[in-house]
């Protein structure tokens, strides 16, 4: 397996942070003291006074000049953990570079950004079940644990997101931002685990990592296809007609995947392994509201 990540890459990462809907919400400062340590309050906006508002929030200077009662609102930053679920099943072995390697690099980059943003970050590799998770913690020392957890990567086993999510929920009691990095080739079993995550209050994002040749295969002639997870074999004579049919079926499956995720309110980011990680972070995830 190639080197996972290097310092230059990390230094070049943009100044981005995970954006939580909870963190982005506005609250009246001081009304509900944050139970969590490390939170800060910063000014957000003005709004008209309504009876019952805390008089301490009235901006008396504005009232003196404008003779209007306005109260100040504040952004309440809460400590939202970030959970990175990385698929390391055998199917992630495919591709050039292997999808597992790309997923690991992307997960490390996301983890680094989150740790640099003072978030608690946890890493949860999975295949048929969770594999050696790294519990959420603050601090860049956590990055070293991530590296050890993902290096070396040896993708193996079948993919079972329901079983893995079941174990994940059992190990983490606090909801947070859940980023799932996988090839999402088993659409049928996605709905139930995503619903459970949503039910707990997690903000879920799905990053689908694909090899370009999975999207646009170019094989011709007599080919024996072998499923790396099940060792099932199918021999086909691949020609232009068969390739066109494959692409059509692939698009149908992607459509089904988007549909399942959309029903759970989960955004999907499709990332071919040929796409630079910087572009994924700076463009895709930022425009998708995952980072800011």
């Amino acid at each position, binding site marked *: 397996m190639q080197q996972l990540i290097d310092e230059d890459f990390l230094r070049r990462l943009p100044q981005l942070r995970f954006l939580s809907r909870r963190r982005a919400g506005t609250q009246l400062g001081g009304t509900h003291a944050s139970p969590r340590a490390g939170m800060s309050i910063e000014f957000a906006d003005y709004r008209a006074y309504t009876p019952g508002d805390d008089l301490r929030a009235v901006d008396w200077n504005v009232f003196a000049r404008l003779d209007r009662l306005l109260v100040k609102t504040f952004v309440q930053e809460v400590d939202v953990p970030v959970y990175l679920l990385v698929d390391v099943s055998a199917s992630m072995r495919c591709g050039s570079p292997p999808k597992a390697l790309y997923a690991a690099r992307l997960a490390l980059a996301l983890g680094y950004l989150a740790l640099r943003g003072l978030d608690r970050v946890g890493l949860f590799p999975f295949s048929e079940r969770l594999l050696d998770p790294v519990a959420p913690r603050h601090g860049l020392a956590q990055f070293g644990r991530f590296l050890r957890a993902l290096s070396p990567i040896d993708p193996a086993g079948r993919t079972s997101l329901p079983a893995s999510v079941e174990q994940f929920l059992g190990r983490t009691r606090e909801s947070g931002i859940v980023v799932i990095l996988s090839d999402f080739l088993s659409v049928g079993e996605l709905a139930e685990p995503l619903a459970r995550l949503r039910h707990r209050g997690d903000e879920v994002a799905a990053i689908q990592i694909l090899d370009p040749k999975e999207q646009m295969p*170019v094989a011709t002639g007599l*080919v024996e296809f072998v*499923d790396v997870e099940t060792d099932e074999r*199918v021999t086909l*004579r691949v020609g232009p007609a068969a390739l066109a049919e494959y692409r059509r*079926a692939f698009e149908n499956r992607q459509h089904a995947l988007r549909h399942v995720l959309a029903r759970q309110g989960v955004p999907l980011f499709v990332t071919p392994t040929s796409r630079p990680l910087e572009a994924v972070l700076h463009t895709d995830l930022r425009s998708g509201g995952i980072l800011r």
Partner: protein
Amino acid sequence: MSFANPAGLAALGAVFLVILLALLRVRERRREVAEIALWRDLRSVPAARIQRARALVDPLLLLQVACAAALALAVAQPAWRAQTERGQHIAVLLDASASMQAVSTDSATLFAQAVQVAVQQLDRLPAPNVSVVLVSSRPSVLVGPEPYGSSTRAVLHSSAPSWNGDADGDDILSALAALGGAEAFDRILWFGDRPPVSLPFAIEAVVLPREANLAITQFAVRERASGGVSAFVEVANETVEFQSLAVVVSDGSTRANVETLLEPGERGAVTAFFPSSRGSRFTASLAADDGFVADNVRYAAIDRSPPLSVRWIGEDNRFLRSALEAAAPLEFTDAAEADLTVVYDAALAQLPPRPALLVRAQLPGLVTESNASVSGFAASDVSHPLLEGVRPEEIYVEHLDRAEVALPHRVLLRVGDNPLLIEVADPEARHYVLLSDLTATNLPITVEFPILIRNLIELAVQRATPAPGDEALVGRILPLPASGDATAWGPAGDVDVLRIGDNELAILPEKPGFYGIAGPDGERVVAVNLDSCESTLSAPDMISEEPAGFAGAVTQPHWRSLGPGLAGAALALLLIESYVESSRRRRGGRGL
């Protein structure tokens, strides 16, 4: 169809290699996928169903197999016999060399048979345009391009073979060049007993088998420095039986008979010696009853040595003169530049400037005492070429005056202490002095005397070794050494002298025999013979008891090679395969 390089067919193995590689490639094309469901569903697509046989019959594979097969066949160089009936412009090459004079058992010459076969062949063709060339070392065009008909047949039947040798490639090319070159003809037919080789164009040859033959293939004579002539004769037995060959060699006046036994196909040499021959024209004849008599006689000529010029001073002596004449032809002269000076019982003021034999001569520095003489057998203390073969003890001297020699000298023979024969030391010439009168010795009646005189001539005169005579072949230009006017004669009378170049003369002998050339430097005789190649058969299997059938005896058929065409086809297939392959790659490459 035939193959020029049948071993090249082994390259067809490349076809099986291509198929094997294709099979291996099909087996090895395996791809791991992350999820097989999508591919599994493709089994419902008819175009994707497995049909292994169809998969093997890939157009690319077919092209590759065809390309490999074409290349392999091109290496094997297949050729097919060209259709020979299409041509209308025919060149008929009739072998008119001397060997075509050979007579077969039905008394017809080979040449007549060749004409008959040629006419039969031409009669089969639909109104061809015919040119006929008599082919030999001096080829000649018998019939120019003309429609074949009765007149052509008449000319053919009236033609005759020459005494010339076989034609080589250049001879035939030059003859055809006069008719527009070989490319001017659709077919070139050759009729004769030995096909020409190394021709730059294809011919159709009808080979007429030769009868068994006995021949003199070489004849040479050499004059020996010590006198006489040796004759060397090479004979050949080109039959299937042992043959005793009797050869008669003649110098015009003397005949020598020699005989030898030869195995079938063997060549042997016999020699004959003419010890006192003065002839310059020699003939070797073979007593044989074979079909080809032209090679049963060969001729040889030699330039005999010029006579020895002798200046005689003093009294005559018939013993000495006879001994000199026996050793070499003599020409007596009074000139001081004679080859040899003989002084017999005379007084000289000084030694002659040229080689000399002095018998009982008075010379300055030589003092004899006539009242004091000795007698007895001669003896010698030295080894000298003059005494080679001479036994001194056979020489008896009855009366020898005592002598005092003041000249620088060397004693070759002595009687007691008295010198009998001395050699005077003179760097200019050799001088030998016999101090006794011949009549006072037994020398004239001994065998030592002619030996001594022969040694004296060879040693003192130093005559050049006689050169072999000139030899020439029938049908080949014979340049003449004479630069001015010259006349020539041959076996059939006077011969035309040809002027070649600016100032060179030559004759063209047309028959074997002796030719004489008379010019400012005298007359010279040249022996002209048949080319010895005419006497030999090309291979033993050409000896046949019966004449072979003529019709269609084509030994050098006209073949057209398919190799270049196949090589071109292979290249074209390769280009098509590359195009198909690149097109496939553009539509969706083979790589996974």
